[in-house]
């Protein structure tokens, strides 16, 4: 089969690999029909995530058709059209049995601080991902769901992470009616966080980014008020000014560890890899939210230490809430929202790239060329 393969920082290529095998009785092998590149794949691509090994296949957003199932699989059969959440989880451990699917204790031998994620380094379990023609899906009775007949495949693939994570980020903000919500980052997750904030009753939704075309999308797609931080000497002061000098009630960090940092942060994180990326967006969130407010974090951060302004968070009495999204827990409600037209996932898709051209896809997404917001990867039919 053809699969994307990591060759080192900023380098990927397509190689012939063996079709994955059933390794466990509850595994399924899924033939991928559509995958996506996620903003957090760029952490791997940039070499920021420890234990990202040459030869790995990335891709934690994918949908496809069941090709083969293990002997203990009861809920799926070959030919079923499935969507697979980015989390790998067992459904039965201490954490899964409490609904914390992203914190599963039974799937990641390499670490206890994070669960299992498809194609997301050995720190997240060492599983190959779905930017390929076939993928191994562990705990097939637990993770995947049948794609509803009425649902478009492009909507389904976005529900495996971007939509669910954005919606989850808004939930973590504990939004009350009339709250002012500021979202840092107008990428796919930030756009869905902004959109979801309205569903939860926000009175005002502000989106901050540095790319004008993404801010335009935040205005048209997510009905948000937008600011380009490049145009302001100090975006935190500007945020205070426009919120009557109080600050926002809720700040959502939808950027993660790779916000453009100052020179020191760029050198220590991007170049020397001494911290898990520059936490500029998180620090802006801490500074921009009002005292007693809530900061929600679902931007991706690596396990390395970051220079986070924790003292300000303490002194302001903030509530910091964060996690990887337990995707499958969100699905029933999100399916309703998609069906009702409140969320239109594939509205943000800008590029559809053949698997063979995935290196170009990564470069474009990394450099933000060609107005790219969300690239999908299409394996060639064979």
């Amino acid at each position, binding site marked *: 089969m053809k699969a994307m393969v990591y060759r080192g920082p900023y380098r990927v290529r397509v190689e012939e690999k063996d079709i994955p095998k059933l390794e466990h*009785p509850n595994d399924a092998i899924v033939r991928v029909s559509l995958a996506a590149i996620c903003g957090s794949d760029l952490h791997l691509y940039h070499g920021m995530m420890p234990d990202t090994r040459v030869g790995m296949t990335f891709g934690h957003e994918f949908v496809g058709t069941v090709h083969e199932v293990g002997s203990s699989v009861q809920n799926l059969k070959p030919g079923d059209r499935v969507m697979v959440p980015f989390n790998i989880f067992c*459904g039965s451990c201490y954490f899964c049995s409490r609904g914390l699917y992203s914190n599963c204790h039974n799937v990641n031998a390499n*670490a206890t601080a994070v669960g299992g994620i498809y194609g997301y380094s050995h720190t997240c379990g060492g599983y190959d991902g779905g930017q390929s023609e076939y993928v191994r899906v562990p705990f097939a*009775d637990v993770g995947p769901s049948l794609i509803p007949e009425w649902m478009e495949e492009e909507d389904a693939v976005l529900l495996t992470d971007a939509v669910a994570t954005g919606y989850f980020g808004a939930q973590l903000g504990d939004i009350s009616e009339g709250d*002012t919500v500021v979202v840092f980052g107008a990428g796919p997750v930030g756009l869905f966080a902004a959109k979801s904030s309205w569903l939860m*009753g926000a009175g005002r939704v502000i989106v901050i980014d540095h790319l004008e075309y993404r801010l335009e999308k935040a205005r048209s797609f997510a009905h948000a008020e937008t600011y380009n931080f490049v145009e302001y000497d100090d975006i935190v002061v500007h945020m205070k000014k426009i919120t009557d000098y109080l600050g926002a009630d809720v700040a959502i960090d939808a950027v993660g560890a790779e916000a453009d940092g100052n020179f020191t942060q760029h050198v220590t994180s991007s170049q020397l890899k001494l911290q898990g990326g520059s936490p500029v967006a998180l620090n802006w969130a801490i500074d921009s939210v009002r005292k007693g407010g809530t900061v929600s974090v679902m931007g991706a951060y690596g396990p390395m230490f970051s220079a986070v302004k924790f003292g300000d968070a303490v002194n302001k009495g903030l509530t910091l809430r964060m996690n990887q999204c337990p995707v499958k827990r969100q699905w029933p*409600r999100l399916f309703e929202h998609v069906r009702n037209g409140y969320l239109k996932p594939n509205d943000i898709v800008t590029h559809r790239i053949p698997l063979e051209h995935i290196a*170009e896809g990564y470069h474009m997404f990394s450099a933000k060329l*060609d107005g790219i917001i969300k690239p999908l990867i299409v394996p060639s039919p064979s």
Partner: protein
Amino acid sequence: MPYTADKPKPKESSEQLRARIPGWGVDLDPKDRPSVPRERTDLATGAHWEFPERQEEKVPRERSVEHKFLTPVFGTSAPPAGLSGALRKVAYRYSEGRAAHWLILLAADRINAWESRLASFISLHPDNPVTESGVLSEFSGHGFRSRFGRKRADLAHQWIDPAVAAGPWILACAAVVAIARKLRRHKA
């Protein structure tokens, strides 16, 4: 007025927002939010086991020392090999709470990239920096135009990129030349 008890009023009322934004307020009640409360024990997961059957360990599998035993299911993507593999095994002696764990892993990642790059030159599929870097999309994705008037995400560090990309190659070539000269002098 932030210095009194009043909460600033949004520019639009809830009714105006409901009329303007599809779905406004449908999840206003926290009970309608799927992750509220955070921990719930009444969710059906599909698991029909108390503890999952264990995946066969065909080759010795590294694991975090914070785990009591190898997890019942694990990934098999890229077993450790070579110098980078040896370093990775050392890293897994330390807990995730230790900087040594992560710093050794990051060092192993860099060594792994170089190992595979050198190994590719004696394979039938050598590395190709042009196709693998995706730089060809500069032509198909309006790369030139994006450097002027529009902010590219990578503009901030482009000045240092050539040194980062070419520097190790230049250093390696210089080392080879230096060694060759030394050997020639030694022979003479």
